[in-house]
């Protein structure tokens, strides 16, 4: 947005300025407040992210505005220190050295007691209002106890050797909060005006508006914007319009069909990044027309993933070529676990028992961003292969009902895979936290179970990679899922604001990631 100042305006302005400075005695040319205005498509039910409910990514997106944890993932997915500076593992014990002089929003300094309190708070079922068990169980099921061992040192004792503890501590479900302030605020207070150690402090949180002020004492430096205002603008067209009209500086979750409009505007730009998450087709291997593995194989082989990425995502996504993402131990594109090969697909279909049975494809509608077109194209690719596909999107609730009852044949789901393949494969294990896949959709072999069981306690990256390659191959042979593309975060940003889309879906306004 360019504002025009005419000669007359200028004279009036300077006159007024001179007059004002004569009378007020204060310098008028004080530095203007830097305000960052963000338009979001969705809204967190509350701000106590340790207790955040719901299957969506809403919490994760806002948590890093106000919370810091012991560690954080960087943009490449590597773990880097945040409130902990060092850590060492000794079997069942993870020992963390804490950062010195970390200031909370209320001005108090972080102690080992605060950290112990914060992590125990996650373990306390009474503190968990929604009964969700904060990522829960995957975060806390391995923790036996947390104890202070020094002024700036704590030890997490695990129930079994846990090589993934660092990853768990880096999720948005493990924020560090001050004990005294949290106890004084209570759960209700933490839900609307949390006190924590992140770069911004919440000063207002309402139904459609959240105002945050910079945390002057932030350990990582003073944040660039003095104030951040987040507004809920659920309708895509309105959010894009507000960005174009100059009413907001950042529009989250930009629809793909708006990329060109925003990119073409003189003062706006589009930032995008593939997330540590991918979209997959999930197939029912237990009941219905997809019980024959050859049909599932034919379906996976017939999906031209690169075409979807190029045509529908403008090349901003990445076609999946394995069950894991690059940089994760065990990822191996050369293994050919996930690929497009029409000849082979036709051969697999010919070898199958398939004889024209109806295959109902139920992608969930209006949930995964920008997934409507890709699923339509996938359905068409299957039809072209010779399958009798009925494309029938479902709304989230009916989908969940049908899904949990084991009634669906074929749908889509996204999987988080950051750091380690277990974040994917734990969903399929025998004692999976919630029975989303077994027994209704896929019951893996005893061999799968024993590899998963073993890998949970292995620290050696080479050993983990070898195990993961076996699991990937097992999935490639049985095709319970067909990975399609890495999901993408796309944001529209005003020029002059240096904010990158984040692969973990966060709005990261820490001084090292954001300036304006």
């Amino acid at each position, binding site marked *: 947005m360019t504002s025009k100042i005419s000669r007359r305006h200028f004279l009036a302005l300077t006159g007024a300025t001179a007059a004002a400075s004569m009378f007020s005695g204060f310098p008028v040319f004080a530095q203007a407040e830097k305000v960052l205005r963000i338009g979001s498509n969705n809204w967190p039910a509350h701000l106590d992210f340790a207790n955040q409910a719901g*299957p969506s990514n809403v919490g994760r997106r806002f948590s890093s505005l106000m919370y810091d944890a012991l560690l954080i993932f960087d943009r490449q997915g590597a773990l880097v220190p945040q409130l902990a500076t060092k850590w060492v593992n000794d079997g069942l014990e993870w020992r963390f050295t804490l950062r010195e002089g970390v200031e909370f929003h209320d001005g108090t300094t972080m102690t080992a007691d605060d950290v112990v309190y914060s992590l125990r708070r996650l373990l306390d079922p009474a503190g968990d209002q929604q009964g969700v068990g904060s990522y829960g169980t995957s975060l806390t099921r391995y923790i036996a106890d947390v104890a202070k061992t020094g002024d700036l040192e704590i030890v997490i004792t695990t129930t079994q050797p846990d090589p993934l503890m660092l990853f768990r501590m880096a999720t948005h479900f493990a924020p560090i909060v001050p004990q005294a302030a949290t106890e004084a605020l209570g759960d209700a207070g933490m839900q609307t005006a949390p006190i924590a150690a992140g770069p911004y402090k919440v000063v207002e949180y309402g139904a459609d508006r959240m105002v945050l002020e910079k945390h002057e004492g932030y350990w990582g430096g003073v944040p660039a914007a003095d104030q951040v205002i987040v507004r809920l603008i659920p309708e895509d067209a309105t959010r894009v319009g507000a960005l174009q009209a100059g009413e907001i500086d950042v529009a989250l979750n930009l629809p793909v069909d708006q990329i060109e409009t925003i990119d073409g505007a003189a003062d706006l730009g589009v930032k995008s990044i593939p997330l540590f998450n991918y979209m997959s087709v999930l197939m029912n291997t237990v009941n219905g027309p997809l019980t024959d593995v050859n049909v599932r194989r034919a379906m996976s082989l017939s999906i031209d993933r690169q075409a979807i990425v190029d045509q529908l995502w403008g090349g901003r996504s990445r076609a999946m070529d394995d069950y894991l993402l690059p940089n994760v131990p065990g990822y191996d594109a050369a293994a050919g676990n996930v690929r497009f090969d029409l000849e082979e697909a036709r051969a697999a279909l010919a070898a199958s028992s398939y004889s024209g049975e109806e295959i109902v494809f139920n992608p969930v509608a209006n949930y995964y961003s920008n997934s409507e077109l890709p699923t339509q194209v996938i359905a068409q690719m299957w039809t072209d292969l010779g399958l009798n596909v009925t494309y029938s999107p479902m709304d989230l609730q009916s989908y969940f009902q049908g899904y949990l009852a084991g009634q669906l044949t074929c749908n889509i789901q996204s999987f988080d895979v950051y750091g380690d393949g277990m974040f994917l494969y734990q969903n399929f294990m025998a004692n999976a936290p919630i029975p989303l896949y077994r027994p209704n959709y896929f019951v893996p072999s005893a061999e799968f179970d024993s590899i998963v069981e073993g890998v949970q306690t292995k620290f050696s990256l080479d050993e983990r990679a070898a195990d993961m390659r076996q699991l990937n191959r097992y999935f490639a042979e049985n095709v319970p899922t067909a990975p399609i593309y890495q999901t993408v975060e796309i944001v529209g940003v005003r020029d002059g604001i240096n904010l990158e889309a984040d692969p973990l879906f966060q709005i990261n306004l820490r001084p090292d990631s954001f300036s304006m």
Partner: protein
Amino acid sequence: MKVLVSSLRRTFLTILGVLTLTFFLARFSGDPVALLISQASTGGEYAAMRAQLGLDQPVIVQYVIYLANIAQGNFGNSITYSRPALEIVAARIPATLELTLPSLILSGLIGFPLGVVSAYRRGSWLDLLTMRLSLALQSLPQFFVGIGLILIFGVHFRWLPTFGRDGFLNLILPIITLTIYPLAIIIRITRNAVLDEIGAPYVRTAHGKGLRPARIIGVHTIPNALIPVITVLGLQVAGILSGAAIIETVFAWPGIGSLSLEAVGGRDYPIIQTVVLLSAAAFVTTNIMVDLLYVLVDPRIRLS
């Protein structure tokens, strides 16, 4: 007195019917716990959460508890926000009234005179223009109108804000969007009603008696034409309330309309039920007021 009692009984039965329908429709439409629970939660937690929310009881037991609670003014806690549903809905009511009341008033204040003029100037260019325009406006989806207004006045000219509830200027576009549909209906209904009256024998008699045309219109025609208009205006309350759900979402307006859409998405039963109950109450109240207005407008009508 008797009339009042029967009217209250009817109101009570209507609201009870609405409550019952909403309760069962919501219950049969999906499981909120499946949405709230994260993928990593245990089956045990799932069961515990259902129990905590009272969803493990038989539906009929839930229904009785629900009615008993409402009778005591307890609408339950929102499943999403874990706070009293009534408190959350009540906080949003002013925002919705800011849009719906002006919309209702404007559609009457503008629509009625336009309809009267159209009728008296039947066939004129003014009549044709008004009728064409109202037909066109009535046919446009509100969603489309809202986005169009945002693009023209917010994005292109930058005269008005595109979203949010920050001040007086923010009201203009949503109110225009919300007013268009009832306005078009009021214009057409008024025009037809006035045309019916113009041709009625009593108007011809009045002309024959040599009364001034202005007096015929003001004292005889318009009061009679008002009756169907008031009826339709009353019915439009429901239309405006449901329109508000769409308009509020388009303009990111934090009223009960956008809240109810969110609540339906999240299967937040207590919120849905509270919103529906309040909307039903508003609708029923409007109808009672319409009945009372009849008496004022036309002395021949008695409440009995």
